[in-house]
């Protein structure tokens, strides 16, 4: 037990750590949209903080770009109203800032929509900042991409080209008094590092602090993946009230170290196991986790359980940021055709295998095909079919054949759908339940470019184009 401090000690002690709270209410576009209210209530109960929404997986941005081509006011997160609407009044009333990449391919339009939401709810106009510079569409930038990616760039129809921005523009906007910051492509952990940087005022090269707070962002960026989501294995790792798992909250101290908890009065769990799983999620070399802001080093990380649903992460540090920024270029990737048909009972697996053989012979070399026997082998096999060929018929009695193929030409891809549909009458006995789908594909290539080639910054909504 620590003795009570004397007056002298009290005077010479530094101010207690001022903690920056960040709660995250979505982990991707398509996540649950009901997470934010409990996070906001928990932030208010703890005296304030920042609410973030991560909504931008690698291809989401290209889809948003396609939407913007159809409608100049589209191209941001389609569920924006559902995410922000229910918490906007409470956030503005209690000083909870909102930071998100839900601007996708059109951050100014997302910001205008939030301003309209505030008007519709009779709220005072929020101070909204819009981050710009991630979209690489000037002739000089395209020439640079051509230099980095080579001739393969000439052969494709580019849909989107975006650099991953970091936390600095977000931090600057927050320091200038933004209540809401709308970004497009920024690195996911930078959504958390931005508010932490604004709060603690670290130097640009405070690598250990930036590294630690970046990993706090990494813990939050997938929503409930750190608080019980994507974790449950009945009998091995059970999660209470998984249907209502609470979204996570990080408390980031002045040295960047952090604790993880979750919204109050929710399901889910935060403990050493859930924190370790998320800490290593999508990590390659743990000593070199690269973001635009820092090279984070979690090779010596440790976790400490402080209480129910409260875990501290220690031992993280950081090193100098990578010299260049990562760029994703998405392009039209032809057509993906998928078709399925079911077989049941005696020789079901043999009939499904016979149907696969028929389709393979009839389509020949027209396009690359993959066959799966759902109920027998449909996940662990390879596209080349080596494993399926090696796997003996185990006489499974409830099997669904899936055929997938892709081709640059729609009409060729469509042949997969027609051949599987024709199995109704021409294939093995008793095939049923044909479903078909034909979708355009988006493919991606990546490179890095010098930071100077990217003109990033932020503007107030009123000044944003």
């Amino acid at each position, binding site marked *: 037990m620590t003795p009570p401090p004397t007056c002298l000690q009290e005077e010479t002690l530094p101010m207690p750590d001022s903690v920056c709270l960040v709660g995250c209410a979505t982990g991707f576009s398509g996540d649950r949209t009901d997470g934010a209210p409990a996070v906001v209530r928990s932030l208010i109960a703890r005296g304030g903080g920042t609410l973030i929404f991560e909504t931008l997986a690698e291809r989401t941005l290209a889809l948003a770009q396609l939407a913007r081509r159809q409608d100049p006011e589209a191209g941001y997160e389609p569920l924006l109203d559902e995410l922000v609407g229910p918490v906007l009044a409470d956030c503005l009333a209690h000083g909870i800032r909102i930071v998100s990449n839900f601007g996708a391919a059109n951050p100014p339009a997302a910001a205008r929509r939030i301003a309209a939401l505030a008007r519709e709810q009779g709220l005072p106009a929020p101070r909204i900042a819009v981050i710009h510079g991630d979209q690489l569409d000037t002739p000089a930038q395209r020439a640079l991409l051509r230099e980095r990616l080579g001739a393969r760039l000439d052969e494709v129809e580019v849909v989107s080209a975006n650099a991953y921005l970091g936390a600095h523009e977000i931090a600057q906007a927050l320091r200038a008094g933004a209540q809401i910051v709308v970004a497009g492509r920024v690195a996911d952990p930078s959504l958390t590092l931005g508010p932490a940087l604004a709060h603690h005022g670290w130097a640009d090269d405070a690598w250990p602090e930036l590294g630690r707070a970046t990993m706090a962002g990494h813990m939050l960026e997938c929503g409930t993946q750190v608080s019980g989501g994507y*974790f449950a294995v009945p009998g091995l790792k059970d999660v209470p009230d998984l249907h209502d798992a609470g979204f996570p909250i990080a408390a980031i101290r002045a040295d960047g170290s952090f604790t993880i908890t979750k919204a109050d009065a929710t399901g889910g769990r935060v403990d050493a196991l859930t924190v370790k799983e998320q800490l290593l999620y999508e990590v*390659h070399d743990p000593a070199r986790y690269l973001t635009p802001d820092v090279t984070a080093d979690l090779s010596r990380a440790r976790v400490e359980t402080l209480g129910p649903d409260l875990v501290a992460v220690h031992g993280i540090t950081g090193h100098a940021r990578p010299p260049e920024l990562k760029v994703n270029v998405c392009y039209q990737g032809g057509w993906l055709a998928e078709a399925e048909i079911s077989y049941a009972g005696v020789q079901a697996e043999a009939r499904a295998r016979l149907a696969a053989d028929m389709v393979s012979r009839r389509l020949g070399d027209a396009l690359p095909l993959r066959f799966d026997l759902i109920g027998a082998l449909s*996940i662990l096999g390879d596209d080349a079919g080596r494993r399926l060929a090696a796997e003996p018929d185990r006489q499974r009695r409830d099997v669904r054949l899936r055929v997938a193929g892709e081709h640059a030409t729609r009409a060729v891809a469509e042949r997969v759908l027609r051949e599987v549909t024709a199995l109704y009458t021409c294939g093995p006995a008793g095939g049923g339940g044909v479903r078909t789908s034909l979708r355009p594909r988006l493919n991606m290539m990546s490179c890095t470019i010098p930071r100077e080639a990217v003109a990033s910054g932020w503007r107030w909504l009123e000044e944003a184009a």
Partner: protein
Amino acid sequence: MSAQDPHSVVVPLYRLAHSRTGDKGNTSNISLIAWDGDCYAILRHAVTGERVAQWFGDRAPTRVTRYDLPGLEAMNFVLENVLDGGVNDALNLDAHGKSLSFHLLDMPVSVPAALAARLPDIPALPPDPPAQA
């Protein structure tokens, strides 16, 4: 210790550890997190990068790297070119390879019988009874 050792038993990895997969492009990372220090000691010598490369042989990874994280009693496997091109190119239903962690957890390893006795387990079901007339 070997499989022939009367004091050892062969168990699947899921009795010793938990795991999660992540993906970036055509590369998969699979964490393997021990339940405790005793389990971690087994993983460190039994689950080598070579063994993992073999276990995922059908997916033909071009390289498998194991990173050790002793502070977490965990390791991180990075399997390169294992996703048939990844989420944008593969024809697999699970183009992200999200389910690969559970394939790793089926890998058999030899452990001391005394340790096995206290590890969590999922009891196997009895075989299906013959169909009733």
